């Protein structure tokens, strides 16, 4: 409010008394003189400066779908996730399944306690108390939820985040896990078409009913291809029965098995366990490479807490991991091999990246005759032990082999359910069932073409 007079500039007080320019207080009424333009500019600048306190990009978004998926994400969050920067954790379950998560929900941080990264729970609304036993019903449950997109956006999945990897964990035997998971990943891809995706799919145990295998097979086919294009960049297949048999050793000498082993695997994948150099671990790069190669299904092979002194070398630890793959694998068909190694500080000097790469190449050559690509991700821990953790991800084996049990269960279920009202009872059209089979066959044929 400075005005130019004929001789001197004057400024007006709130009571419109004129004062010499630069006066802080009015000489007549004593009220402060405010330069509104300047104050407005400063206020707007102060508001805009709030931007530096807003956590923008969520580079890693962890989604746990269904009962098992939620539990794994919760365990991982508690064990390793809290230390991850730029990450968000979201558990999604059906309202009926969510009842079992009551204890877990009470452990969620309140708004006041909010610190990054955040863990939250979203329940898919159900119209009735009916159990979501089938893939089709689970998919319908997710697609009927009008708030799902908003919940995904809130977890940080959005197009403005250029470098983003979505980790989706789900057990595919149940209705919610098998049906909702592919749909949710589709929505995530729609919200951020540039995101990378990595699915950890738990396949049902041998003693589970055929309906569980049917669910798993249908779900797997959707992850492989949905709307005429591959949906998940990488699918890590974990057979429940095999997982139960694998053992690892933690940094304190404790046994790591079953679900905690999966949590550990995820930790290695995202560099959450490493104390330093975790920047070298980039699961998004692995996902990108897998998509570009057209190889989507991978079998993880874990060797956790293997002593260099006992095993005598990296090659033996790799062979040890290959002896207990988490799903059926055909060595002859492997075309992609990703190795994530975590080396303790005391072995850093003897296990440099060049040394490991040389050993890995030699070992790969001896084991995988059709190998087309190999990637090493090395990280270090401050552990004083001589134990190394490694996770080998092998891609190229046909689904007819890796998901053999699911396929057989799918066939049996299909035969039993013949003549039934598919859409009404199972939530899928009779047309979509053969489509699932066609997608799996297409993927296996495509692997043959890549190999040749």
């Amino acid at each position, binding site marked *: 409010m400075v005005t130019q007079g004929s001789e001197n500039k004057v400024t007006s007080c*709130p*009571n*419109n008394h004129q004062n010499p320019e630069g006066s802080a207080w009015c000489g007549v009424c004593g*009220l*402060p003189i*405010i330069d*509104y*333009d300047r*104050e*407005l500019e*400063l*206020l*707007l600048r*102060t*508001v*805009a*400066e*709030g*931007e530096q*306190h*807003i*956590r*923008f990009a969520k580079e890693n978004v962890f989604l746990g779908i269904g009962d098992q998926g939620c539990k794994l994400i919760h365990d991982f969050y508690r064990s390793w996730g809290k230390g991850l920067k730029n990450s968000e954790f979201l558990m999604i379950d059906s309202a009926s399944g969510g009842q079992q998560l009551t204890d877990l929900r009470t452990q969620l941080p309140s*708004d006041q306690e*909010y610190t990054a990264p*955040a863990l939250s729970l979203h329940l898919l609304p159900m119209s009735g108390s009916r159990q979501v036993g089938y893939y089709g019903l689970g998919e319908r449950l997710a697609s009927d939820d009008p708030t799902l997109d*908003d919940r995904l*956006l*809130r977890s940080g999945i*959005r197009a*403005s985040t250029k470098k983003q990897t979505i980790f989706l964990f789900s057990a595919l035997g149940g209705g919610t896990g098998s049906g909702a998971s592919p749909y949710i990943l589709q929505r995530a891809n729609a919200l951020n078409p540039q995101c990378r995706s990595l699915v950890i799919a738990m396949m049902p145990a041998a003693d589970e009913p055929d309906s569980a295998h049917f669910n798993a097979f249908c779900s797997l086919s959707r992850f492989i291809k949905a709307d005429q294009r591959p949906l998940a960049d990488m699918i890590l297949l974990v057979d429940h029965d095999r997982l139960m048999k694998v053992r690892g050793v933690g940094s304190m000498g404790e046994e790591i098995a079953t679900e905690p082993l999966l949590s550990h695997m995820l930790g290695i994948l995202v560099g959450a366990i490493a104390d330093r150099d975790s920047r070298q671990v980039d699961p998004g790069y692995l996902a990108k490479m897998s998509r570009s190669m057209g190889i989507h299904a991978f079998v993880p092979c874990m060797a956790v807490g293997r002593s260099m002194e006992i095993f005598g070398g990296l090659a033996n630890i790799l062979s040890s991991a290959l002896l207990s793959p988490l799903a059926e694998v055909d060595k002859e068909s492997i075309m992609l091999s990703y190795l994530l190694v975590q080396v303790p500080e005391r072995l850093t000097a003897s296990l440099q990246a060049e040394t490991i790469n040389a050993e890995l190449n030699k070992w790969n050559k001896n084991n995988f005759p059709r190998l087309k690509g190999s990637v090493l991700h090395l990280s270090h821990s401050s552990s004083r032990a001589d134990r190394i953790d490694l996770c080998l991800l092998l891609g190229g084996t046909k689904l007819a082999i890796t998901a053999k049990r699911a396929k057989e269960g799918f066939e049996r279920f299909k035969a039993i359910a013949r003549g039934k009202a598919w859409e009404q009872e199972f939530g899928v059209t009779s047309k979509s069932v053969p489509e699932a089979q066609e997608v799996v066959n297409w993927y296996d044929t495509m692997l043959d073409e890549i190999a040749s």
Partner: protein
Amino acid sequence: MSTDHDEMMADLEEEKLLAQLKNVTLENVGKGKLWLTNKRIEFENKGGFFSPPHLEFSVDLSRVSSAKVEDSSNSLVLEWLNENSEHVVSRLSLPGGDAANDLYQSLDNALESLRYQAELQEQRACYQAFLRKTAYHVWVAASLLAQIVPQLTREDWDAVDASLSAARETANALAAGSAIDISDLMHALAETVASRDASLVLRKVTATLKAIGTSLQNELPPAAGWEELSQEGSPGLNWRDIRYIFLFAGRYKLLSLWQQLGENKKIEDSLPRLARFSSILADRIPMKSEPGRLSREEDAPSAISSVEAAAQDLEASLKVNAKDSLDGYPRL
């Protein structure tokens, strides 16, 4: 505030005799004198042999609803309301001549002047009602928009949605009162909030605050048509005060964020500004506390408490004023 002021000014104004006329006959009463001042019209009965003259009526001009001259009978018909608000008609026969014409003319002018004053007073009351209501809505809108900033830092989207919804209602009220129309900006902000992109939302909030702030830079909303009144400098709120309310609300709502983040420099920068704004507003709006005068010797925590008390006082006063103004609030 302006109504009290006008009444006080009217009372202070000196009473002047405008005209007087003898031999006036009041129907059913008799002959007497008619007096006209700038404030009242009186008829004094002449009295009889045994009765002294006495005042038959003395009517405040503001209570006169009609004064008609019937030329044929050379009479004046006065219609007015007595102390009991009863309608009274007085028929006065006036002697012919210039004196009677002068009285008619003076009475007509006095009543016209009174009508103008009453209209002006009504306009002032409407203007104040408009300002009070706009002041409250600007306070609410600026507060809601500024409080979205800390909500974004917590990524508390439920709270952001609630703030936005209330801000949109306020924007509608501002637009309906012809003060500022930020409905389109609010619509655009709502679309951005739906993207759940905190960075984009913050930029949109800043743009919306800028639009409101820039609108307040104008002397008055052009649609209101109160330019003359805004120049009067009468007591009560004026358009410029709304700017200080806007600045105060915006800065005050960010204070808790800076406290939470330990941004002491920003707090030190904000406190004296808030104190200056509130000392101006305390001059206009009744407030219990005046941090502008207290803050000079206060440490930061007690200065913050003073600002908080002033903000609460201010909000309460603005709310009461806006509510009181509801009846007289014009729909333009």
